[in-house]
């Protein structure tokens, strides 16, 4: 047997790795995904806010928002119509192949499911908060008044019952597609080529590459502009990639510290 993907996490004969392909080119910004997610997962409300950010009054992913629809209004070069274009995109936890949140969790509350997704066990999490700054996408967050960390579970309960996650089920335009990751990657590649042929040269895939900084995302996207325009990091890297180097530096620092103490005490007595 060859080297297993970290996403298989040692399961014996796991089901295929499941994921999301979010094709933002057909997103109409209806927010049905946000609503369906909240309803199914019983996620508390996060206030009725008017953010003044186009039609986005959610702001971003948080402990209480596991799907977030971004709205970007852009001037369009050389367009004969309104001169504007809409970008709409439903963001979600990326369920990284190399997941920083999972790596740094000190309690084992975060775990890898048999579907290759990353889920928090709410009965284990003690709210240490380490996963929150570790996530390169700013997905996972602490719920105020509850203290624990929460994020998208890729509807683990529904997956176990062989059901489609709530957001993908509710999406009226098939912008959110759910399925085996391998299949989704092929589908995304075909869609990308279709768009390029149609002259939409700004289309690009994001998070699809198993060789990227997080080993490829379980939830990846087709975007029409650079990732940062959607609030996504342009080149995310799992922080634990540098962890061996960090431990080496800490070891060196620890030896330096011990040596300094020894030298200080070995010095001549006055």
């Amino acid at each position, binding site marked *: 047997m060859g080297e297993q993907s970290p996403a298989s996490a040692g399961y014996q004969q796991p089901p295929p790795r499941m994921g999301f392909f979010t094709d933002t080119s057909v997103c109409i910004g209806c927010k049905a995904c946000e609503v369906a997610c909240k309803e199914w997962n019983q996620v508390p409300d996060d206030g009725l806010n008017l953010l*003044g950010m186009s039609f986005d009054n959610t702001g971003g992913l948080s402990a209480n928002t596991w799907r977030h629809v971004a709205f970007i209004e852009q001037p369009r070069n050389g367009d004969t119509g309104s001169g504007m274009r809409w970008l709409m995109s439903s963001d979600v936890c990326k369920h990284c192949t190399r997941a920083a949140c999972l790596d740094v969790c000190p309690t084992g509350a975060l775990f890898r499911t048999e579907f290759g997704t990353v889920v928090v066990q709410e009965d284990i*999490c*003690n709210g240490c*908060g380490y996963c929150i700054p570790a996530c390169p996408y700013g997905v996972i967050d602490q719920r105020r008044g509850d203290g624990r960390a929460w994020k998208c579970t890729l509807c683990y309960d529904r997956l176990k019952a062989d059901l489609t996650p709530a957001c993908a089920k509710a999406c009226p335009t098939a912008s959110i597609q759910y399925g085996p990751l391998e299949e989704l990657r092929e589908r995304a590649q075909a869609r990308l080529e279709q768009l390029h042929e149609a002259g939409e040269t700004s289309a690009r895939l994001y998070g699809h590459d198993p060789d990227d900084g997080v080993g490829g995302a379980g939830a990846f996207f087709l975007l029409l502009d650079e990732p940062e325009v959607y*609030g996504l990091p342009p080149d995310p890297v799992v922080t634990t990639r540098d962890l061996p180097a960090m431990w080496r530096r*800490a070891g060196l*620092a620890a030896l330096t510290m011990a040596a300094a103490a020894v*030298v200080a005490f070995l010095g001549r007595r006055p």
Partner: protein
Amino acid sequence: MNASGTGDQGRGTRGTRRETQDQGTRPDRRGEGTRRERRDAAVVPEAEFRSYYGRPIIKAPVWRYDIPAYLFTGGLAAGSALVAAGGDLTGRPALRRAGRLTTLAALSASTYFLINDLGRPERFHHMLRVAKPTSPMSVGSWILAAFGATAGPAAVSELAPLLPRRGPLGLVRRLAPSAGRVAGIGAAMIAPALATYTGVLLADTAVPSWHEAYPELPFIFAGSALASAAGAGLIAAPVEQTSPLRRLALAGAAIELAGAHSVETRLGLLSEPYTTGRAGRLLRAGRTLTALGVAGALLGRRSRVVSALSGAALLTASALTRFGIFAGGVRSAEDPKYTVGPQRNRLTGRENGRERR
């Protein structure tokens, strides 16, 4: 909860945005969702980068003051354990006693801070559910537990003179110094790990100015731990026994200041959060007090008062440094330019490399 900090509808007006060394982002971008600022007479070209209404990309740590406070008390506990063992092995009983008691006090404070910061404090013991080398917090929990199991008994052994001379308790009284020595040496062996793992703890995050500072953070914290422990000893011990502490203060300060200087200058754009704003003020104040503390420790070797004042300066300086490093990281997480800029440059560099090939 979500409404904070976006009153300008996505066009960045918070602070001034300047290109810093080579870390700036490409200057040819505009459009909605773009965060830019026009400064007509800017000498340094302004950095431009795109973002989603200027909102942060990564989440800033939710850790409160407890964590930087723990960085300080954990370092103080570790440094003091070294002082205690050194004092014990070189026949300086005042240093031994002061070191052990400071260690216990700082360790107790550390435990309080760490538990208090949890979202679910009653589940603190879940920290010892697993041992995970990929999680510096898990590694740190085990280090702290082992340290407590050695430093605790070492400190308690200082109470032996309160026991009666005769009977079974008299036996305990006679054995206590040897047991305390063994425990104290054990604690001193663990102490450097306790003082330095916290550098990895902060660096092993997506927080840009922490992550990129990973080579320096353990050194800054090690130096700061030594200087603070020397400071505590200078306050507690009579001047006749403190000559090692003065050397320790000098060495600690040198390690700490060299590390801090490096993060403030080496990281390009990511050095900025450490030199400006609250973090900049804290780190500058810390540096000044460190210098004063070391000078006082070296020059005031005959005066108990000057020594104690120097010790207080060193302790305060160490706390300021920890809060400064913490604040700098938080600042770098809150502004998307620190996330987008370096990543964009990395991508551009890779693309250029590919073209050349």
